[in-house]
């Protein structure tokens, strides 16, 4: 059985992008990682089996080259919230990628994404919740 989320584009190959790329490709997904800084591809480990595009994700040619029109999932994981919001919106609105997820550092921007129907992962919020749970568990 093939899963519907077969072709995944990840924008940004930092710690998050590269780790996610590794997890997904060990799960037999077809993964395309895009980062304008080709040295960032060194973050990928041996287990990664997918495509690398060393170009700027904010260029429309790069998106076309990555075949965004065929993507099942688009992940915006660059280190800049504004870039993430822009490319995520392009993926969602222009190319109608079925699932678009963006990482954002700034929790206050989350509402904006919700309006655009884009899923977000905010490490700040996730860590705060995890901290809170540990602290409250200790109180009990």
């Amino acid at each position: 059985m093939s899963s519907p989320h077969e072709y995944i584009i990840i924008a940004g190959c930092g710690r998050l992008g590269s780790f996610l790329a590794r997890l997904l490709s060990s799960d037999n997904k077809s993964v395309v990682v895009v980062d304008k800084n080709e040295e960032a591809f060194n973050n990928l480990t041996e287990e990664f089996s997918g495509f690398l595009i060393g170009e700027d994700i904010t260029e429309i040619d790069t998106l076309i080259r990555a075949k965004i029109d065929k993507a099942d999932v688009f992940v915006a994981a660059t280190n800049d919230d504004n870039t993430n919001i822009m490319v995520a919106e392009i993926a969602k609105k222009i190319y109608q990628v079925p699932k678009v997820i963006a990482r954002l550092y700034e929790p206050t921007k989350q509402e904006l994404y919700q309006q655009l129907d884009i899923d977000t992962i905010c490490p700040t919020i996730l860590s705060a919740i995890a901290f809170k749970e540990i602290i409250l568990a200790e109180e009990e």
Partner: protein
Amino acid sequence: MKKILIVDDEKNIRLTLKQSLSSEKYDIDIALNGTEALKKIKNDHFDLVLLDIKMPGLSGMEVLEKIRHFNQHINVIMITAYGTIEQAVEAMKLGAIDFVNKPFTPQEIKKIINEVFNREELNLKDLSTYHNMLNFAKKCIIDKQYNKATEYLNKAMTFSNNEAEPHNLLGNIYEVKAQFNDALNEYRIALEIEPSNKQAMSNKNRLIDFLNFRNRLNKGKNE
């Protein structure tokens, strides 16, 4: 079971291809470079070769040329670099007309392989759809029956006149026959039908560059 040889120097691409085909019933073998591929094709039977154009050492085109010295009939799908579809005419002369552009989705790769295998079985009585007509024309091109291919490409166009692919192939055939203006005309039609068609764009630009170069060369000779 159909036997496929994957030829690529990049581990990532070999793995992706293997994974993409894991749900299909194919017997898959791997070669890390052109020399190893040629050795395997000489010693074993393969139904299809997936061949990367850009490799260190022997390039994909050189491997294709060498394969044709001893095997005219093996199916070859060329894997091309990101965003480019180069050398379409040279590859056509060597009996390869199927290209997959990196990065590719598992569906794309499965579809093109299916198409290549189904094409082998096609015969004249099946030609009732655009798709079959086009594929029959492709079969003729691979067998270097260019006039017959032209006839069936034209017939395919009567089934569906808003497809760019038959015009691209017709343009390639004209180029093989050195009818460059006719070729350019076909690429222009393909682009009118589908302005973002990468193959047509790359064909047109390459041919215009070539014609400009030839003009400059002729001018130089006359002066």
